[in-house]
């Protein structure tokens, strides 16, 4: 199978790095919002062809993603990423118009994790131990800045933390466990708030 490659597009490597800095930065921003189309994202789920219950990922992909997120934020005396429904957040958020480009980079990265696992340990990512998964993730994390692996790891980290600590209406931070972990609770949106709807209402500039 071919190595994971970022899809060729009109942006340079430098732009990817800057775009990522914005994802993780304090202000802004992800994904283009077409000025003329203000309707909510109605993109066909990528997984539809294989009848996956998920919007972006096939079931095997979702399993790899879940295992990876759970290594980033494992359950210990406090809930972990799976408890917080972080993988569900990522699956939904990658369907938004704003993240179309991020999705094109992220899904291949999930598959790349699995390929690395098979090459290193002869087994799928979901079959290896936690320590072995950490080894694979560390390799990605420590890859040269600007590499596809380092870039994917940063996306994984950022989306996991958004899923852990974002408003629950986006699908993660289930029962506000993420906010409880970091002690944030002073000014949440009202209970009926729907973040995804607001995101689409304000996407166009």
């Amino acid at each position: 199978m071919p190595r994971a490659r970022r899809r060729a597009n009109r942006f340079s490597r430098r732009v990817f790095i800057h775009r990522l800095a914005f994802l993780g930065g304090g202000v802004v921003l992800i994904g283009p919002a077409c000025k003329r189309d203000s309707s909510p994202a109605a993109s066909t789920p990528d997984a539809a062809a294989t009848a996956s219950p998920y919007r972006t990922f096939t079931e095997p992909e979702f399993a790899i993603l879940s295992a990876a997120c759970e290594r980033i934020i494992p359950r210990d005396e406090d809930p972990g990423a799976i408890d917080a429904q972080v993988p569900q957040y990522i699956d939904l958020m990658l369907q938004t118009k704003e993240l179309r480009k991020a999705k094109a980079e992220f899904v291949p990265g999930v598959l790349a994790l699995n390929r690395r696992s098979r090459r290193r340990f002869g087994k799928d990512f979901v079959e290896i131990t936690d320590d072995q998964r950490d080894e694979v993730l560390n390799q990605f994390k420590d890859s040269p800045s600007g590499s596809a692996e380092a870039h994917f790891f940063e996306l994984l980290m950022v989306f996991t933390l958004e899923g852990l600590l974002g408003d629950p209406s986006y699908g993660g931070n289930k029962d506000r466990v993420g906010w409880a972990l970091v002690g944030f609770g002073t000014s949440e949106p009202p209970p009926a708030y729907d973040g995804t709807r607001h995101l689409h209402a304000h996407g166009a500039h």
Partner: protein
Amino acid sequence: MALQLARAGFKVALLEKGAHYQREDFVHDEILNSRRNFFMPLPWDEPHLVRQGPNGKYSRTNSAWTANCVGGGTVHMSGYFYRLKPIDFRMRSELGPVAGANVADWPIRYEELAPFYDMAEEELGVSGAVIPHPFAEPRSKPYPLPPLDAHPICKQLDIACRKLGYHPLPTARGIISRAYRDRSACAYCALCSYGCEVGAKSGTNSSLIPAALATGNVDLRPRSMARSIEVDDDGQAKSVVYLDAQGVAREQPAKIIVISCTAVESARLLLNSTSSKFPNGLANNNGLVGQNLMFSSFGEARATFRVSKRKQSWPWLDDPAPFVQRSLQDFYVMPDGRHGFRKGGTLGFMWTHPNPIFAAVRLAGSGSSGVFGKTLKDRLREYRDSRILQFEIYGEFLPTAGTYLTVDNSVKDVYGIPVAAITVGRHPTDFKMTKFLVERGEDVLKALHPDGLERVTTGGETTILQHGTCRFGNDPATSVLDKNCRAHEVPNLYVVDGSFMPSSGGVPTTLTIVANAFRVGQALAQTMKRGG
């Protein structure tokens, strides 16, 4: 400007490239407000090109954008409202030239702007207390509103500052501490950098713009992206060509045209407005539009205090009060050059921002020093047990030939307009000055005996504070605008954002920009009434 002209009975068309957010659009949702394009455009849709030095490679960023919406940067500012001081208007005369920098006096003095600072504070709604200190600028009246409540740690901060011989000041805020002019008082939610759903933050969207609309003389058009300013055969500005919400090009004729898009975007608009009379861009026959671009010199350090360790000594530490509200201006101007600089700036103390995703991403780090798993969770739990006090520096950013703006015709945004291309070349004195101020701030934090102290930077720039690209002055050979912010070369064109400033000041300049707009607006309304 729109408010004053509308009150004087003139008809004003107000074009804004972004949306007109209402209070119900401002929700406490970090993903919406701080991590998507609610305020700033996306770097691949509407990039600013930025390079370090003329030989650097441009990268596409969203640096140097402020909020794109009605009210602009004042919608998501934190509202630190300081005035400039008399010396800022006379940097060249009082401190002398700086080799390698284009230091210049302003063509007006502080005293001419002071009544408009009063007006701006009153019209916007500013809360503060006047305290005498070595660098206090003259004031004729107190703040219109009393100070906001401050966290108990400010008492410790005051003690620490005074022990070091400094003069802690309460930071004036563009946030109303009491009900004011039909607006509700601050609800102390700690999320000032979001839009304020209560209307207590004194962005122009909650104060000046509603008042302007209430006159019936203002036609506000959001989602209207100005593309160029057209001139007639006599070289007078005659209209603004803009793209409406559907992307259709429209032309709005006008007798007077005022631009206020931020120093970067106003210069970009002028440079993109070429004609046979102005081949280098409107009002740019002397080549100065885009020159002398200045941001603000930035430094930061932060001190961590562990709540569980201080239950006896500091039982008030986890009081949720969001505001610390202390500043130091003891280093606004140094008495001599022994530390390598004369003009310094302001230190503002505050709690770190409560955005949890932002804090967590920072704690995770990246690359070989980044962490995940239990290590990351431990850091998040420590963060839960911490209160983090930081200071920011607002330092003088010297104008030089090295920092400037042009437009790049080969790179266009989603509107098809050539984008701003920024070159940053800092003066070395900026860094000496910022480092010195950061060290003094760290002395204060150390005097509080924190559980951790981290220096964040001594060499940054705050790009949302931007100035200089259409410098005002009396001499048309060395300035773009006259003392009334009217273009020397185009008698019916005005620029009223931070572009006009010949120096960046040692404070955030938001209040100054509003005060100047009131000053220019008053003079323009009088001129127009006289039929000029």
